[in-house]
């Protein structure tokens, strides 16, 4: 890759602004409330953009383009089925309890609604998950920067060994994120997420524009690829007739209900952004405002993947090929499809093939290849900066959520109660350092799966899948008890692990991909297995929670005011103009989403 002065200037400019925002906010961080909750003073549109930006990390940009290249437009199910409905729900129905209860975190809500053990379980598993996710984000970034040879030339000039690039990439990203959160807390993270959101759009929109122009628009993609790539619902009747290998019921229940609601409605990483809003109606509007751009992000991240596979080989110029000097790359491009090269076995230098003798494609390279193919120097710097921004916003989201949960739900609850506010503010700052350091460690551990998306789905399936059952019962059935919730959560997580251990997907080897107890059932794809793992976990948690709740003592009604639907006053929003009413926004979002599903049926 040949970067010039202009590319480096853009990248540097981004770093200056990101850190500048941190420094500018430093003087406003007076209490722990400022640091962890942004003083509950952020306007709705800022929270809304941060809400999706925190989720627009490495897994999204690289992983969704990879899925787009592999599965086609059906990847949009992760948005139009697997995100938007849950975002509408969390804003309209759950935010009144998160925001209204004055809980400072999702685990703290569990403490208020249920008991200490339920909070502890959630807080600890969540803290681990955030560190892990932020580590994956960093690892993916360092690997990508290496693959793209972004830093090869400057390293050569400085006389540093090329093997340091990986470590320097990880450390640089870690230090920048650490600094801006350390200085400005959640506000800094949120403000930077908004900046990063615009940067990601600015960097990828011209890529989609050029790519579509090149392949002849959506019609051109339709002509160049089999029909399964360009229809999201048409083949969902049976796992055999769509590329995802899932049937519609598993998709809608597993992804659309259990996993999606488990993530968007209970994951503190996103919910925290809405909890920082300046009023109840802003908090309720945050997810609806987020849903508007969210439903169009498929065009930004999935389309590049589709364009990359649709591009005729004759259009693929050698200039776009990554690292032509490396042995085997020519063969990998030859065996690939469009811009996507095949994977190379590092031990033999040969193209990797699957059981049927077909070459395995390296779909994660879809976005990098597209950038190199279409972007000349100048805008290439912008595209790379957009990639960096997406990695950092994903990381920062995890770090701020970890900070709050660690400081309020673990440190203040179990290690040091009743200290001064200044003490917890200090702990929060130190936790930023600790959290980032732990993420760096996790980054060095994250190497097992090749598709980042699949790995995250697996982790979410175990930890998050049962969670939504707990929240649904907790918020809407006042009879639910702490013992019920805790037992339900444990059995749900256990059910997920058991189901994963007893099933496997077609062609996979027993082990990390399932079947480690014994194989009772074989799913047509890993995705189908993950979705059904989630469904089993959720149903188990739901039933066990009800069962145990009925036989244990409920809390009196007066203790549950503000925490349960039937005992909480409905938010009064009659005075708001129509475009600020959460319900009106929700309807607009729902109608648009249905339209998108129909257009790409």
């Amino acid at each position, binding site marked *: 890759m040949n970067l010039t002065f*202009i590319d480096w*200037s*853009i990248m540097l*400019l*981004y770093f200056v*602004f990101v850190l*500048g*925002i941190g420094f*500018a*906010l430093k*003087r*406003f961080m007076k209490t722990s409330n*400022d640091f962890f909750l*942004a*003083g509950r*003073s*952020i*306007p709705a549109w*800022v929270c809304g953009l941060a809400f999706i930006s925190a989720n627009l990390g490495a897994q999204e940009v690289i992983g969704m383009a990879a899925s787009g290249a592999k599965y086609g437009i059906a990847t949009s199910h992760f948005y139009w089925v697997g995100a938007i409905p849950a975002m509408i729900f969390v804003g309209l129905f759950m935010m009144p309890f998160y925001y209204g209860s004055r809980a400072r975190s999702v685990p703290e809500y569990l403490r208020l609604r249920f008991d200490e053990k339920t909070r502890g379980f959630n807080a600890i598993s969540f803290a681990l998950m955030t560190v892990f996710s932020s580590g994956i984000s960093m690892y993916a970034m360092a690997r990508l920067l290496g693959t793209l040879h972004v830093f090869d030339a400057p390293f050569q000039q400085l006389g540093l060994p090329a093997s340091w690039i990986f470590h320097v990439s990880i450390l640089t990203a870690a230090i920048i994120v650490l600094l801006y959160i350390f200085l400005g807390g959640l*506000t800094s993270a949120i*403000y930077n997420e*908004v*900046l990063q959101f*615009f940067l990601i759009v*600015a960097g990828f929109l*011209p890529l989609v524009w*050029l790519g579509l*122009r*090149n392949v002849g628009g959506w019609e051109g993609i339709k002509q160049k690829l089999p029909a399964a790539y360009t229809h999201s619902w048409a083949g969902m009747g049976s796992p055999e007739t769509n590329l995802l290998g899932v049937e519609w019921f598993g998709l809608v229940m597993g992804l659309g209900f259990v996993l999606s609601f488990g993530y968007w409605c209970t994951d503190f990483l996103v919910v925290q952004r809405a909890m920082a809003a300046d009023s109840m109606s802003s908090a309720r509007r945050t997810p609806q405002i987020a849903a508007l751009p969210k439903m169009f992000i498929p065009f930004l991240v999935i389309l590049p993947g589709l364009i990359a596979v649709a591009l005729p080989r004759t259009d693929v*110029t050698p*200039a*776009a090929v990554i690292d032509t000097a490396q042995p085997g790359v020519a063969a990998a491009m030859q065996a690939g499809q469009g811009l996507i090269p095949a994977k190379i076995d590092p031990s033999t230098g040969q193209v990797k093939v699957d059981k049927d003798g077909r070459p395995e494609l390296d779909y994660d390279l879809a976005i990098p290849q597209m950038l190199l*193919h*279409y*972007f*000349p*120097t*100048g*805008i290439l710097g*912008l595209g790379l900066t957009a990639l960096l921004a997406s990695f950092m916003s994903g990381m920062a989201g995890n770090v701020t959520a970890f900070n709050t949960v660690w400081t309020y739900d673990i440190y203040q609850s179990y290690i040091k109660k009743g200290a001064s506010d200044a003490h917890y503010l200090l702990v929060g700052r130190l936790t930023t350092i600790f959290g980032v350091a732990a993420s760096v460690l996790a980054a060095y551990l994250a190497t097992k799966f090749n598709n980042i998306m699949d790995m995250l789905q697996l982790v979410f399936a175990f930890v998050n899948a049962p969670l939504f059952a707990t929240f649904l019962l907790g918020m809407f059935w006042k009879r639910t008890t702490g013992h019920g919730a805790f037992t339900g959560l444990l059995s749900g997580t256990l059910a997920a692990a058991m189901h994963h251990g007893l099933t496997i997907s077609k062609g996979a080897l027993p082990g990390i991909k399932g079947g480690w107890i014994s194989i009772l059932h074989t799913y047509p794809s890993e995705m189908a297995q993950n979705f059904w793992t989630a469904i089993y976990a959720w149903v188990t948690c739901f039933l066990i929670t009800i069962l145990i709740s009925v036989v244990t003592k409920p809390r009196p009604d007066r203790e549950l005011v503000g925490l349960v639907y039937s005992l909480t006053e409905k938010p009064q929003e009659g005075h708001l103009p129509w475009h600020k009413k959460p319900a009106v926004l929700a309807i607009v979002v729902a109608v648009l989403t249905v339209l998108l599903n129909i257009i790409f049926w």
Partner: protein
Amino acid sequence: MGIDIRLPIGLMFTIIGLLLAGYGLLGDASIYQRSLGINVNLVWGGVLTLFGIVMLLMGRKRPAG
């Protein structure tokens, strides 16, 4: 809190936009073969400058936001 986020965003995009557009205007024109012959730096730099200026204006108008 404290600062209106539209101001730094507006400023950053204005600078990036001007940088790109300036480079597109003055730099070597032969590099645009890969972007289908379109001077993407000039075009997109212009778009970003415009976006940056709009953000700056919006941020100035309502300092509370």
